């Protein structure tokens, strides 16, 4: 399927090429450089010349390398782009997403590609943990690499939120030390690699301490029109899991989604809620009351280890996790969303002095006990602005000329708190009324991160592990993280 893989530096220097077809000319890499990298007008991630197609992505990490595939027939673009993103993730785990490192250790990428792509360039195995297990070299920060991966994925899918950079999850320190959890981790990893049914988990893993970390990551996307009506709103969530469990554990968990909550289960759960105890995760009382009901999941997608059969039949999410970290499921919610922040802008154009007058109220709607961090309101101003006179009730606000915007920033924002900003712009002297009237007014955007709050109201109800040889009870942790995806308000 894939005839060749090319990797270029961000400036367009070819750093790696590997071909899976003998019919390709090696000079084909120049064609891509001329047609795409050096061509600023190209606006598409796919280019077909004759019968040759180039698919490319820019690496989301490190030096923004160009990862490119060459295909010669009507290949499947979904497979190719999925593969490229997986390759990006594996390269990131090995810190080979930087040009300098890659120029030294490119043979590691050759090995990766040998594992990930079978004969004829068909992707065969791209799962991070499984690829690492088959590699002769392990990533330097072994567990760190594994742990970062779900968050790395998060970065992929939320291109608009720079706050979700890698390494943001906080893990207890003892975790990172244990780098050799694989029993037979030595030369011939493929020997103990059981290919029978569970290709993603080697047999005989033993951990001193059994632990599970669940991360419910949510990004809320909302678009508010000028008159305050909500044009669209939805939550994209992922549940990431990090497991350190011995043996071959079978994990099972339930959510408060409305499909799964039909039976007596529901009553039990409600009763449990009232008692506020005996639940698996002791910190449930942090979740706002609004979440106590059930959530309608529009769609969910699962990692390959989840038995889809069981889910469709009984709405039970059951799986044997690979050791380490992974993105367990993705979901999508549209109804009854808990909005964490409300932005009310009043932006007027005063005819007298060629200035724009901003009055913006930012109000947090999540419970007072919680607080959000890294709250940033990005307020665009006309390009002709040279200065802004700003007054804020809290936080810091600065006019940033290179972005044509005022940036209002809070390190910490408490729940149920209201803050106000008042500002006027000062324009260059040659600005006309018309200039300001014709200003396109890009939307105000908001970024934030709230811990232990769920935008969708989704709650993990229970999490059980029935392993074969786990002697002691596993420790379970859960963390809810709500972030802004694209939170845009027009005015």
């Amino acid at each position, binding site marked *: 399927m894939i005839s060749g893989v090319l990797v270029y530096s961000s400036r367009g220097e*070819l750093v790696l090429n590997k071909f899976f077809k003998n019919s390709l000319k090696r000079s084909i890499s120049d064609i891509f450089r001329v047609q795409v990298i050096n061509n600023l007008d190209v606006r598409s991630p796919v280019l077909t010349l004759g019968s040759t197609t180039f698919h490319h992505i820019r690496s989301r990490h490190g030096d923004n390398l160009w990862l490119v595939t060459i295909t010669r027939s009507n290949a499947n673009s979904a497979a190719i782009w*999925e593969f490229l993103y997986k390759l990006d993730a594996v390269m990131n785990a090995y810190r080979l997403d930087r040009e300098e490192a890659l*120029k030294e250790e490119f043979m590691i990428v050759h090995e990766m590609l040998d594992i990930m792509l079978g004969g*004829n360039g068909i992707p065969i195995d791209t799962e991070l943990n499984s690829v690492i297990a088959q590699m002769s070299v392990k990533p330097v920060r072994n567990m760190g690499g594994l742990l970062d991966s779900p968050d790395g994925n998060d970065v992929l899918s939320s291109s608009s939120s720079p706050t979700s950079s890698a390494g943001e999850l906080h893990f207890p320190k003892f975790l990172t030390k244990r780098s050799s959890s694989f029993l037979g981790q030595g030369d011939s990893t493929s020997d103990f690699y059981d290919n029978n049914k569970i290709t993603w988990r080697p047999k005989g893993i033993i951990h001193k301490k059994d632990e599970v970390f669940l991360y419910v990551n949510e990004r809320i996307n909302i678009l508010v029109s000028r008159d305050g009506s909500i044009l669209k709103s939805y939550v994209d969530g992922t549940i990431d899991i990090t497991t350190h469990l011995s043996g071959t554990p079978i994990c099972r968990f339930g959510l408060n989604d409305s499909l799964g909550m039909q039976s007596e289960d529901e009553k039990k759960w409600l009763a449990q809620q009232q008692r506020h105890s005996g639940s698996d995760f002791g910190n449930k009382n942090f979740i706002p009351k609004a979440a106590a009901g059930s959530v309608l999941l529009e769609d969910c997608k699962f990692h390959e280890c989840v038995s889809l059969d069981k889910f469709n039949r009984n709405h039970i999410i059951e799986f044997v996790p690979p050791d380490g970290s992974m993105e367990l499921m993705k979901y999508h919610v549209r109804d009854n969303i808990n909005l964490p922040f409300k932005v009310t802008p009043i932006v007027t154009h005063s005819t007298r002095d060629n200035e724009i007058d901003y009055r913006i109220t930012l109000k947090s709607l999540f419970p007072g006990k919680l607080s959000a961090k890294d709250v940033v309101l990005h307020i665009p101003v006309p390009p002709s602005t040279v200065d802004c006179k700003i007054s804020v009730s809290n936080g810091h606000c600065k006019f940033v000329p290179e972005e044509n915007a005022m940036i209002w920033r809070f390190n910490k924002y408490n729940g*149920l708190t209201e803050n106000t900003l008042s500002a006027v712009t000062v324009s260059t002297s040659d600005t006309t009324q018309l200039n300001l009237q*014709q200003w396109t007014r890009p939307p105000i955007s908001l970024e934030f991160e709230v811990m232990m709050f769920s935008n969708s109201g989704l709650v993990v109800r229970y999490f059980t592990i029935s392993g074969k040889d786990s002697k002691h009870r596993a420790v379970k942790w859960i963390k809810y993280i709500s972030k802004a995806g694209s939170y845009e308000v027009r005015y």
Partner: protein
Amino acid sequence: MSDQKVFARYKANEIVTDLQHFGVKKFKSNITRRKNALRKIIANLVLGNYGEMSVLFSELLKFWQIEDDLEVKRICHEYIRVIGALKPQQAREALPFIMDDFKSRDEKLQIMALRTLVLVPVKELSDQAFDCIISLVNHKSPPEQVTRTAIYALLDLDEIDHERVLGLSSILHDIVKAQSSSPEVIVAALHTLYSIHEKNANMEPFRIPLELAFDMLELLPELNEWNKATVLEVLTTSVVPQHYLDTHEMIELALPYLQQVNTYVVLNSLKFIMYLLNYVDVIKETLAEKLSNSVIALLDKPPELQFLVLRNVILLLLSRESSLLRLDISYFFIEYNDPIYIKDTKLECLYLLANKETLPRILEELEQYATDIDIQMSRKSVRAIGNLAVKLDEDSVHDCVAVLLDLLEFGVDYVVQEIISVFRNILRKYPNNFKANVTELVKHTEVVQEPESKNAMIWIITQYSDVIPNYLELFRVFSSNMFSETLEVQFSILNSAIKFFIRSPTKETEELCMDLLKGCIDHENNPDLRDKTLMYWRLLSLTKTSRISNAITFESLKSVLDGELPLIEMNTKLDPTVLEELELNIGTIVSIYLKPVSHIFRLNKTKLLPQSPILNPNKDLLPVVGNSFPPTGANRDRQNSESQSSTKSRKTAMMDDYDKPAEKINQLKGKRKSSSNNPSKLSRKPSTLLRKLSMKRPFS
């Protein structure tokens, strides 16, 4: 010397000295240095330094023998794969070494060797590859990974020696039928068979018996994501259902895979289901819902995949009269940070999704985009509004026009030009509804610069000259520059001048007309333009003489040159056979371009729906029925009613609905401060400056 950069151009003898220097002594530190030297070879191959590197062949062979480090082996194999194509003789010399690796115990080495044999286009090597593969598949318990590589290798070998591969295909058939090997090997065999059939034009399309298809579907849970997707890919068009029951059962088995994270699996399962829907009696409403939800959830992927999904949404929207997908338009609203290719595609989706109910919301959005910073985007949304006006019925057109007129007041020149261009189409479809607005449009005559909008403006002035008092004056704006215009505009000017004259043959119009005709014949070189001018000239002179000969009347001339125009229709539909083919190619490259496979990839076969007694002749007649199964019914009802009401309720969902009294309100304090560094601040700083200066520190 070894501390040099790996990634730089080297002369062959530099690397040779490196290798010899560290090759002899058996120190540990030398191993890494030697490796570095070897890596330089690969780096130089990437840099295109083939001539120098091919000299190193004999050096490399030394290491091939003595080293058993995998990385060194990998370097050797990579070297042969590149150099072997250029120097077949060297490839032949390396053959014994490759075979040594193949005979080793290490699976990874075996795989490497096998791939090298296939990848070097030298006959001796490919012959050897055939032998290896035959020995492998005849082996009693061959190692799995190696077998899989061998099977896929046949795909490459097929391009070299099709007949010989065909001879081996019975072995693959056996593997698939027996279902006794490991799942990976079965999938590889199945995929290889399918691909060979697809690649060769003279072969029949690949077919799978029903039982085998069910076996494969039941195998799915045991496979990893790529293999799952592969199976679903192969099954599409390969299995031909003969009874409705079979079809429904297969759909049930494929449904869960709509919920995988991997887009490849989801789209392939979607493709398989869409394929099967050609062989059903009814479609369940819940199925339609599941399909739409899974498509929507894919919009959370990285932009490139999102783009692919959106293109396929367009495909699916086009494929049926009333699409199976139930999509809320809000998902296709453009976000500020979307890459331009996604914005474009979303715009197209919105255009296709527009109907009477959704129009107000869509128009509101499009009006937003029309004032976007990106000029392309802004133009495209204006164009979309115009196209909607032509596409939809007469009730909607007034809304569209109202928006366009609003935007006209916005006054940015490219928006105005675009509006003029689309207005021509609207006027073509509704010639009499917007006469009153024409005067508004022609106010912008001076602004139009581009050929297309000029053309449109000239056409509008000509067509509605009866409501524009100063039409000749406006027309002169264009006609006075006749000879510096592009050809198409020149044609328009010429046509219009003739029409003006024919409608009202006054002194003024005659003069205008004659000036232009003369000018064209005297100054213009373009043969088309000259021909057209001459034709007009002769026609006009015929009517002058016709009073005597009665050859042609002025009236008939008028009907020829200024006749009624046919109404235009907006045709967005693709050819049904093309659509049918595209539906079988969901997720592939052609689904992005929305063109038939044969237009882009000449060598690929066109996929067709296989015949079957239950093949639906017309899928638009297929009934979509509500779900009759009670278990999830109650819930679905809730959702249905919600989604019905949601279109209305969402419209009115306000930001203010989300409110809670704040516990703490921080009041604004103090006066507005300037945020940029005020120069006046400097004057307050001397105290700190002084302190710095007076710090007693020796200058270093």
